[in-house]
């Protein structure tokens, strides 16, 4: 019961935060802007480029959101009131992770969908032509956001201050989200599904590490 309650609350809390205005409005607006200002690159649909930019941006936002939120709540001693009640500590972290992951993914999905619709409308091609690329885009985007969110949770638990957390989030985070692409760097042919699988593994490892550290933490 406590997990569903905390999760619903976290979802509501993040949904109501001001960052959401940027996510719900800013990201789709960015997608339109990219379409208006970018030329086709090596025959790739502009929606593909949009998806890459939006997923990276969404990933960065989710990592920073979670890092700042967790450190801020640690500083304000928000967890004291939860931890003296009969709940599991991991409920707090996993509910935060899932809330941000869902919200950022929806925002990115809206932005990318908007890009695809413009592409279909402009090129007068059927959506079927884009379908394979769309699936790949969705997998890569979701994987990037998952890794970034888990990284944000981990840094939030470890970091002693918001400034340190944000700096680590930005500078280290951009390398962490590239982990699923490592096989590709070494010339191994990587499908979007493999990227997705690596993404899930990296996400789970970082979340488990964050939970273990959070469980050991004394408040």
């Amino acid at each position, binding site marked *: *019961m*406590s997990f569903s*309650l*905390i999760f619903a*609350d976290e979802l*509501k*809390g993040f949904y*109501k*935060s001001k960052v959401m205005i940027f996510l719900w409005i800013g990201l789709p607006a960015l997608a339109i802007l990219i379409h208006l200002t970018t030329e086709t690159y090596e025959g790739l649909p502009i929606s593909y480029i949009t998806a890459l930019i939006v997923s990276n941006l969404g990933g960065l936002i989710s990592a920073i959101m979670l890092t700042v939120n967790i450190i801020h*709540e640690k500083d*304000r*001693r*928000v*967890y*004291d*009131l*939860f*931890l*003296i*009640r*009969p*709940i599991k500590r991991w409920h707090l972290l996993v509910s935060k992770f899932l809330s941000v992951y869902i919200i950022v993914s929806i925002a990115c999905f809206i932005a990318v969908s908007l890009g695809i619709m413009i592409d279909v409308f402009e090129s007068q091609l059927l959506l079927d032509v884009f379908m394979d690329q769309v699936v790949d885009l969705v997998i890569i985007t979701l994987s990037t956001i998952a890794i970034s969110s888990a990284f944000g949770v981990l840094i939030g638990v470890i970091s002693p201050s918001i400034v340190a957390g944000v700096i680590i989030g930005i500078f280290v985070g951009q390398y962490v989200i590239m982990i699923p692409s490592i096989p590709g760097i070494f010339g191994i042919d990587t499908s979007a599904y493999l990227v997705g699988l690596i993404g899930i593994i990296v996400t789970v490892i970082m979340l488990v590490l964050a939970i273990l550290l959070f469980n050991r933490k*004394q*408040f």
Partner: protein
Amino acid sequence: MEKTIRCPNCKKITTVFGNPGETKKVTCLDCGNSGKIIFEDSHGSISKDTLISVKNISKKYKDILAVNNVSFNIKKGEIFGYIGPNGAGKTTTIKIMVGLLKQTSGELSINGYQMPEEKEMAHRFIGYMPQQIGFQQWRTANHALTTFGKLSGVKSNNLKGRIDEILNLLNLIQYKNKKISKLSGGTIQKLGIAQALLHNPSLLILDEPLNGLDPDSRYQVKKILKELSNNGTTVFFSSHILSDVQDVATKICIIDWGRMIKTGTLDEMKSEFFKENQIEIILSKKSDKYDEVSKISGVKKIIEKSSEKFLVNIEKKADSDEIINEIIKTLLNNKCRIRSITPVSPTLDEIYQYYLRKGGINQ
């Protein structure tokens, strides 16, 4: 002797027999979970009505000993005032008691549950208000209380009524639907007390609950604490506002530099504090004859504070009522006009200062 224990794993209740002072290994017959149980010996034993037992608790942060060998027992229904200067170790002790911190050494049990090992069980009947109350700012007062009420196990059908009852009790009902970010410090403080009371806990642990409250709210909260105690709730609260502690606490513990300096009731502390009793006499008119009082048996010394006011020190074992009677007779026989005669009682502030100095010297 016998002891009834509840398995922290499967919740099965088992009765174990043992001798005083014996430590027994117990294995749950249902789930196989095992642990140790101590049968206290008669010396310093935990009585049946003891709710909190703290035994030689210490907490060390690297080189700093924040809590040093603290021990006390708190009975059901007591209001235990935990006082000491800033940095004395009050909050650290409280955090160990609620399971937010783990003690470096020592044993602590709440209603028979060992802390922090069995904290999930103990948390069901603890209401805790931290010194720094951190509510999530986007919540309304009602939303925060609803969440904490549900997490504490208050049934959904009772929760709405219970929230209104608590908010009315603390005069917070007008803030029910206000966002926490818009509330004043004092209101948030009272909301902190509200969340601790919500699930009707049998043990209330409050860290500086009266800090930042206006006089009216302080009076109100003190009244609530007394009522709760009368209804059987045990209250443990820390403070450095001594007059508040004096008003409500049935037992007091003074702590400084992590060490427990003195524990007892206010009366016990007063009797140890004073080597002799003191009576203050105020005359309505200056008179040189007041010196005759020194001839009364049991009077040790007269201290002149002003031309009309003087203090009479009497021996501790002497009957103060008898001596007051003699003083009145002597003064009237000597044509002195009496305005007032008052036995002087030390304030908690004086006792506190006395024990802190004594503690400092002994350190």
